[in-house]
């Protein structure tokens, strides 16, 4: 039997990452969709960087930054008691950066595609910005939110390079499923590697299929027939 811990750790990491990313990406996506600031291209570039940058590059710089032998790393260690290198918290921060574009892009596109008149009308009707966001804007970009959530989750499940660089391979702390697969292959344990791989394959397939079914309205149509 395989060790379930890497799989549980993977999903715990993906779950927390997705929730934090959602909270971060709604305001960020809203700002990017509506700002006229000249700094917008710079922010957009930073958000998109993880799409093209090798994960090892992100991992390497985070490793350097978080290392207790550095000023930032030692400040985190001394003042907040946070050790971000080779720890779950470190993985979490790295995952948030790594999966940021997958959450921000759909949400930003969702906000941009909504007619501006909806927001204006809500204001004219005397509604505050918060009410407008929660009652008018977010309910009308549900499919973008779902896409963002799923892509960010799936992408975090699939990360390897960043985890290896900053998390290493500590069982129960940083040894996620993708690392476990690599580990098993290294020790020629193909059966275990295959089991991990099959589980990840099946889960990712079902999650993405569910999104396409829901966003494509296939489930709704069947109900009506």
């Amino acid at each position, binding site marked *: 039997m395989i060790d379930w811990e890497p799989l549980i750790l993977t999903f715990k990491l993906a779950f927390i990452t997705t929730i934090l990313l959602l909270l971060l990406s709604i305001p960020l996506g809203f700002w990017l969709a509506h700002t006229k600031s000249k700094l917008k291209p710079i922010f957009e570039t930073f958000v998109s960087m993880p799409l093209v940058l090798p994960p090892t590059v992100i991992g390497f710089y985070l490793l350097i930054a978080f290392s207790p032998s550095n000023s930032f790393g030692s400040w985190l260690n001394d003042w907040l008691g946070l050790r971000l290198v080779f720890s779950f918290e470190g993985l979490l921060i790295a995952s948030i950066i790594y999966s940021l574009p997958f959450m921000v892009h759909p949400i930003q596109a969702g906000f941009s595609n909504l007619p501006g*008149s*909806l927001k*204006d*009308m*809500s204001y004219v*009707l005397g509604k505050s910005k918060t009410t407008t966001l929660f009652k*008018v804007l977010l309910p*009308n970009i549900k499919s973008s939110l779902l896409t963002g959530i799923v892509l960010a989750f799936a992408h975090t499940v699939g990360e390897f390079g960043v985890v290896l660089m900053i998390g290493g391979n500590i069982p129960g702390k940083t040894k996620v499923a993708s690392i476990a697969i690599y580990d098993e292959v290294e020790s020629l344990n193909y059966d275990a590697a295959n089991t991990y791989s099959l589980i990840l394959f099946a889960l990712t397939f079902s999650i993405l299929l569910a999104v396409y079914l829901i966003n494509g309205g296939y489930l709704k149509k069947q109900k009506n027939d």
Partner: protein
Amino acid sequence: MIEIAIQKILTSALGEMSLDINTTIEKGNLVTIYGKSGAGKTTILRILAGLLSPDKGEIKVNGITWLNTINGINLKPQKRKIGFVFQDYALFPNMNVKENLLFALNKGQDTKIVNHLIEIIELGELQNRKPETLSGGQKQRVALARALVQKPSILMLDEPLSALDSEIRFKLQQYILTVHKEYKLTTLLISHDISEILRMSDKVLELDNGKIIRQGTPNEVFNYKELNAKFQFTGTIIDIVKQDFIFILTIRIGKDLVKVVADESEGEQLLIGDKILVSSKAFNPVINKIG
């Protein structure tokens, strides 16, 4: 009473244009803003609603300052209490018709008004439908009802009827007139349609290139002073045929083609494509009710 004196430089596809408006609108009037597209009509309504800020100027409504660029006063749209019907209606797609109206209620406001509006604007059968399933005219009625939920004293309509066919249009004009009177509104309407303006408005502001070029009653503005006992239509000449010493003109008036006779002296001055005014006095027309 609305006193408005604003200036704003607008950049459009055609280059820069300076919007410079200075006028007063009497309480309880129905005022139409008329003019070519790009003349700045929508911008005026958006500035009044607080969705857009002018470069400088002042807006006072019933003695209360809404905007004064010198003192830095600029009330938020939320505080202005205006009923606004946008050109695209802006119904919230996630809510059904009734929810759209309920959303517009102020905190703690009695929901009775919603039912009353559903009744007078005849939305009863539509209340549980989502906006995407409604026709243009139905959407327009919902948007009109929603704009009135908070009992605003000012109602603004941005070309609400332009996308509708003539029968529905006529009915909606009636709805607008009904609520205008029932709620004692000051109403500002953007329209391109002269017959609509003549039927509905107390006053017309004609806008061109960001400036008011004419204002007054519709009859004054459109020069229809001698309207009594007289029919007149504007049309375009499609064809001119000379027969002996008369001319037969084919004229397009709206969607109809009409043939009329012109004498030699009139006919010789006319060319195909000319815009003309056809009028007739002192005759007894046949009237049939069709709707």
